[in-house]
């Protein structure tokens, strides 16, 4: 009888041999692991930066830059101007922000020197800086008038790993026309959480919700919780990085956030599946929601040609607090130098060029982000160009945090999963935060222990 679909006998022998060879290789690998020395890579952990970079003397040649796609101005003239001014050739590349972390991690772990300059922000500066993958800068390389929040976004543990390209924090945007339609005073935005909830209720009609946020992915859920936590006077961590977000203030903050969706029913349910701020900005710009807490680029999205809301109907104010006046989360971004770069002086020249007035003015005017220096923030012309700058200055008088750290992504995942559970009423806020805190404590101990 034939044996269809079965391997010939000789194949069976080959399979055994193959498995044997595979086993031998695996065993070889294990033996090598047992017998080999401890591998060492990078300069991570608590290792202090070996040396700092402070001068651009002799900067020449060429550099490659890997940025996110937030700032079109670089492609629209800034790179060209830098090349003309310095004689340094630039190869500038943009990538989606959400994909950039993994790409950079892969490049760095391979000690790749393809890119001299990379985009960074609070979490990555801490994470990649701690791993020894970013070049530390000396004090002489850092402008003295940088905004503290912007400088914080490129620093970790007292070491500066880059220079900011723009400053950013969330503020409140509201639709004045919808306020009028709801019988609310468009010139008197809500100043407290209760006023905010009341306004959001008045703005909620039919399919349109008074408030929308972006909690659809890990960072979104984290940001919305941390902002509410700060608004309630809470903190993510206490002394020595002790996890504190599950204390009374944290539980109350998460309860208030959940209540917007489940009790007050003023939060657009699609908030749980909106994964980025630009989608949120589009929704607000289209007049589909009354209030959002968003980044400064929201102004540009709401006032650009074709947007339903328009400049005259876009209101902007500080975010109403729960137990404090206000608070916000930071979203400043910057550039850092790859530790494995072959042309660090030229890379530093780019970092410094971006912080200077001509580039900053373009970023503010054309893209709606905040400038990185106090000098420019106080400039009347800047405020006239971008009215939300004055709100940012007001917001800056209160707490603006992001809690960038080497364990940021680990804790963010754990926390966002549990925040989603609470929002979906799969767990109480207390249960969700306790679960997240227990795991976050283990994670932080792994890093600091």
């Amino acid at each position: 009888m034939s044996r269809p679909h079965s391997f010939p006998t000789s194949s069976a022998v080959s399979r055994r041999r193959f498995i044997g060879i595979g086993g031998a290789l695996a065993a070889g690998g294990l033996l090598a692991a047992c017998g080999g020395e401890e591998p060492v890579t990078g300069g991570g952990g608590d290792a202090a930066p070996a040396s700092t970079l402070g001068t651009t003397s002799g900067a020449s040649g060429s550099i490659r830059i890997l940025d996110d796609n937030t700032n079109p101005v670089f492609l629209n003239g800034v790179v060209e101007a830098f090349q003309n001014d310095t004689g340094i050739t630039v190869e500038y590349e943009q990538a989606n922000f959400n994909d950039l972390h993994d790409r950079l991690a892969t490049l760095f772990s391979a000690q790749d020197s393809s890119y001299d300059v990379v985009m960074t922000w609070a979490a990555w500066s801490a994470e990649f800086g701690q791993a020894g993958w970013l070049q530390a800068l000396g004090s002489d390389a850092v402008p003295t008038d940088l905004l503290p929040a912007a400088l914080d976004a490129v620093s970790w543990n007292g070491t500066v790993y880059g220079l900011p390209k723009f400053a950013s924090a969330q503020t409140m945007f509201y639709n004045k026309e919808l306020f009028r339609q709801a019988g609310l005073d468009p010139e008197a935005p809500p100043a407290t959480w209760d006023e905010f909830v009341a306004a959001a209720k008045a703005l909620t009609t039919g399919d349109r919700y008074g408030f929308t946020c972006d909690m659809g992915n890990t960072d979104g859920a984290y940001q919305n919780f941390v902002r509410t936590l700060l608004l309630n006077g809470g903190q993510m961590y206490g002394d020595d990085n002790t996890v504190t977000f599950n204390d009374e203030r944290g539980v109350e903050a998460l309860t208030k956030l959940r209540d917007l969706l489940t009790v007050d029913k003023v939060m657009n349910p699609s908030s749980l599946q909106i994964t980025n701020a630009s989608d949120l900005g589009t929704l607000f710009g289209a007049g589909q929601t009354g209030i959002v807490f968003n980044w400064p680029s929201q102004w540009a999205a709401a006032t650009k040609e074709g947007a339903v809301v328009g400049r005259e109907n876009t209101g902007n104010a500080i975010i109403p607090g729960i137990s404090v006046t206000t608070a916000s989360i930071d979203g400043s971004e910057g550039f850092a130098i790859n530790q494995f770069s072959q042309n660090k002086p030229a890379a530093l020249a780019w970092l410094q060029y971006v912080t200077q007035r001509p580039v900053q003015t373009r970023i503010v005017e054309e893209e709606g982000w905040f400038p990185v220096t106090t000098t420019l923030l106080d400039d009347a012309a800047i405020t006239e160009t971008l009215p939300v700058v004055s709100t940012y200055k007001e917001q800056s008088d209160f707490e603006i945090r992001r809690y960038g750290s080497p364990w940021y992504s680990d804790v963010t995942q754990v926390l966002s999963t549990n925040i989603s559970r609470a929002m979906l009423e799969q767990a109480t806020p207390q249960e969700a935060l306790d679960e997240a805190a227990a795991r976050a404590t283990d994670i932080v101990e792994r890093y600091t222990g």
Partner: protein
Amino acid sequence: MSIPTTAPTAPEGSRESRADRRRRGTDSRTRGDRRFTLALVAPAVLVVAALFAYPIGYAVWLSTHQWNDKISPRHPYIGVRNYTTLFESGEFWDAMGRTAFFSVITVIGGVALALGLAILLNQDFKGRTLARVLLLVPWAVPPVVNGIMWRLIFDGDNGIANTILRNLGIIDENVQWLADPDTAMNVLIFAEMWKLLPFLTLLLMASLQNIPRNLYRAAGVDGANAWKRFLHITLPGVKGALMFALIVQSMWSIKVFDTIYVLTGGSGGPAGGTTTINFLGYLTTFSNLDRGYGAAIAVVIMVLVILTTLFWILLLGRPAGGPSRWRRKPGATADVTPSLKEPGRDELAQPAGVAGESQ
């Protein structure tokens, strides 16, 4: 006169028999053929070994180290601690549960649906060519575009899925498909099956076309109904392709990534509801940079894929002696067809009237 019942045996010490000489010659030729075969495949085997064995060996090696660049530049050997931590982790078993659910639906459901479509498209009907061309459309769509497309379709505010369901009066309020772990998993399954259906259908359709039509005619003459024709002609006829489809679909299901990434904004949410084992490996390795632990997850995935493949091979690739319905007649000339020879009168006379029926 007595008739010898066995072949005469050569006296001890006499010349070897013709049978022995024949056997010895055959063995010698077989050995020569085998050496020649080995020489021919050796370069390919070396390349495969370099491309596959090294990364696998490296992953296994990595999984025995504590390798997180954010924690320490030193990466000590820790034996199987990453594996014990993994097996004690609730997160791992949650991800395994989701992977099992996702895989069972997409493998069994996907292949069954593909078989049904393949049978349908194998019939003669007007517009068959157009239908076959349209079938290829999902296959031509890049995976990321596929994910974005389904994300827009199932958007909670402006998605067309909600619009259609509301217009049909099925729902009163918009459903937030991607905000709930259960519905998000269902959307993921839907999107994956839509993407993979063309390949599976084409594979099975090619196999169906190898089944001689006269087998069906003969079965019809013998009074076999559609179900019996399907059971006794179609299924045995596509057995090889079916096994292949089940194996590759199982692999793809266990390793699903791109659709999850795009649908959930790279989070595997909501509330971890779409974090399958492969996505957990991604988050661990690339987001948390915990490469040792991530490698342990990768090795577990590899073992899982091997075990699943073996399961299908043992179930469907079983030689004669297995379940009779899957056995083939002697003399079958192609892997995917029960028999290419014309059915004999005896075969047509069987109740089921099919070739490829059990022996």
